[in-house]
């Protein structure tokens, strides 16, 4: 599939008038990838497809000029669609190279299970329901479900639905919604005081690096409310109350846009379980509006659409 991808990407640059290719290259750390953004047709030879291609590349479309060929897993493709709905991306200006996704390996989970760091692993291979990890020549097997990102376990569209080119064979969803929302269930089972305490504690760790916002394809505001000073919505002092407010408002802003790619949680250097907020918000959006983000590019974006039947007394 990699060879095919490289061939297609080269063709796009050479023949189809695409200015940039956005994909994944091998990263500098073991078991990592890095976004490859290039207009060099030779450089596309370093494109890779792997269970470590964690970034949601749709995020880069917001800041890129010209026509872009983008490598898209299911979640990337949904985020591209969501950006099209919000008029942030023009459909004709992107060529979506769809890549069916096997589910992504969460290296932090492997590290925890094996009690080793990523640079101490010799090899990690996804083999269907088992994942083989080799450490110092010793083979250990873990259930694949234990090493995949939680969002991958519940992903409904590992194969992109919106694409121009689809590589390889479509893949089925893993469909373990219960395991995918285990952390959320744990939070739901708490009494409100406990839950409040949990988030108070977690958000006291926030250092306001804004990686959650910067990595997110749904956070496309040119100026974030955090940076407004008239009025000032939250304090720039990193204290838990304001950190909580930041996350609450951010989640309301991405409601109907978040495709549960899990990048906010993965990027967080303080390991704050941010997906428990964003996934819950997606569920509430689904329950309340029967709406799933990034499914239909021709449908108006959730928060920009209004129908007469939705009229409430307080709205004239």
């Amino acid at each position: 599939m990699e060879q095919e991808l490289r061939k297609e990407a080269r063709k796009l640059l050479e023949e189809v008038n695409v200015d940039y290719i956005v994909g994944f290259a091998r990263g500098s750390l073991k078991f990592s990838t890095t976004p490859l953004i290039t207009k060099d047709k030779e450089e596309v030879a370093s494109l890779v497809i792997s269970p470590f291609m964690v970034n949601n590349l749709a995020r880069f479309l917001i800041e890129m000029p010209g026509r872009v060929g983008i490598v898209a897993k299911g979640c990337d493709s949904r985020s591209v669609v969501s950006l099209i709905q919000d008029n942030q991306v023009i459909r004709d200006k992107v060529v979506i190279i769809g890549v069916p996704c096997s589910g992504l390996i969460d290296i932090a989970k492997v590290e925890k299970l094996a009690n080793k760091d990523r640079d101490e692993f010799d090899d990690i291979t996804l083999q269907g329901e088992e994942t083989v990890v080799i450490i110092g020549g010793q083979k250990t097997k873990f259930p694949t479900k234990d090493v995949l990102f939680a969002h991958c376990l519940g992903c409904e569209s590992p194969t992109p639905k919106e694409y121009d080119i689809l590589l390889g064979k479509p893949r089925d969803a893993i469909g373990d919604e219960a395991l995918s929302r285990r952390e959320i269930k744990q939070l739901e089972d708490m009494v409100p005081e406990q839950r409040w305490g949990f988030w108070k504690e977690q958000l006291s760790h926030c250092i306001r690096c804004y990686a959650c916002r910067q990595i997110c394809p749904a956070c496309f505001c040119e100026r974030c409310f955090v940076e407004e000073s008239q009025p000032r919505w939250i304090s720039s002092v990193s204290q838990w109350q304001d950190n909580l407010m930041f996350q609450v408002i951010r989640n309301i802003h991405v409601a109907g846009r978040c495709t549960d790619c899990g990048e906010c949680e993965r990027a967080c250097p303080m390991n704050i379980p941010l997906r428990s907020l964003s996934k819950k918000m997606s569920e509430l959006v689904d329950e309340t509006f029967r709406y799933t983000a990034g499914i239909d590019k021709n449908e108006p974006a959730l928060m920009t659409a209004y129908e007469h039947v939705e009229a409430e007394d307080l709205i004239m």
Partner: protein
Amino acid sequence: MATNNKKISKKDVAKLLDIWSQQFSVLVPSKKENVAGLAMWDGVDIGFLEWYRNTVIPPKANFLPSMEKMFSFKKDGDGYHIEIAQDEPKQLIFGIRPCDARGITMLDKVFTETYEDPYYVSKRKNTVLIGLSCTNPYDSCFCTSLGLKPTESADVDLMFTDIGDEFLIEEITDNGKELMGVASLVKQATKADDAKARTVKAAISDKVIRKLDTKETAKKLQACFSDKDYWEKVAAKCISCGICTFLCPTCFCFDICDELVKKQGARYRGWDSCSFRLYTNMPMENPREEKWRRVRQKVCHKYEFYPMNFDVIACTGCGRCTRLCPVNWDISQILSSLPASAASRSEK
């Protein structure tokens, strides 16, 4: 035969920390919070001696916290009554790595030498640093390319090196010597211990596999400063978050803000980052509006501007920026790919 060095049995480390606890707040590497950082020693657990490679949050946070109150104020008649933050308690950091200790020396140049920052100084003068040689450097570490060794430090008071069942202790400063004076658990090291330490140290230095040639870096950076195409390419995947700067042991930028509610409030300062677009925002313009200019600033500050001011590169090769970057933006890769000669392309 005795040497200048001391040693302590590993099983006595807890007792030693106990003795020090009577005089200092003892901080050790801890995983009790979400990520590894320094935390108050609980009086029992020395498990970190097994798992500890380095912390996620660098010890700079103990001198320049991510957020600190500078003073509080209250409306008092026509003026304000100001209450300045208290002097800091005496603290002892046990287990600091040579790279992070050097990071603090770099902060000293900014906060004590060029300008005496009372908030920094009050913590710094009350802190002793006990270094701990690395045993297992990460593949992202490159301290040896910056004139450091994972097992040597001139920036600590005492330096511990694992030599099997014992730690060899080198007394680096007079403060360090004094700390040894109170501890009856400490023995004189022998020539054989010193020899063992030398072997261990050489082996560990060899484990730092990532190499970077820094001799020409400043010159090359100067030459390619206006090469917009190069910097645009290099910056393309950066997401402009604050991770690499916030968690860098040498980055020291901060922002100051006031919190005012009903005629009383406080002034705080917290980490700021040149990666943020607003960092250089001014009413009429922003000299670093574009991402590539911010990325260039970060690299040049560490490898060109700081050396111009202080004659040393503001990077200790700890590798945090590479390990923690959500897009694997790797500074040593970038520095290795700098264009060799001056570019003729113009910035505008």
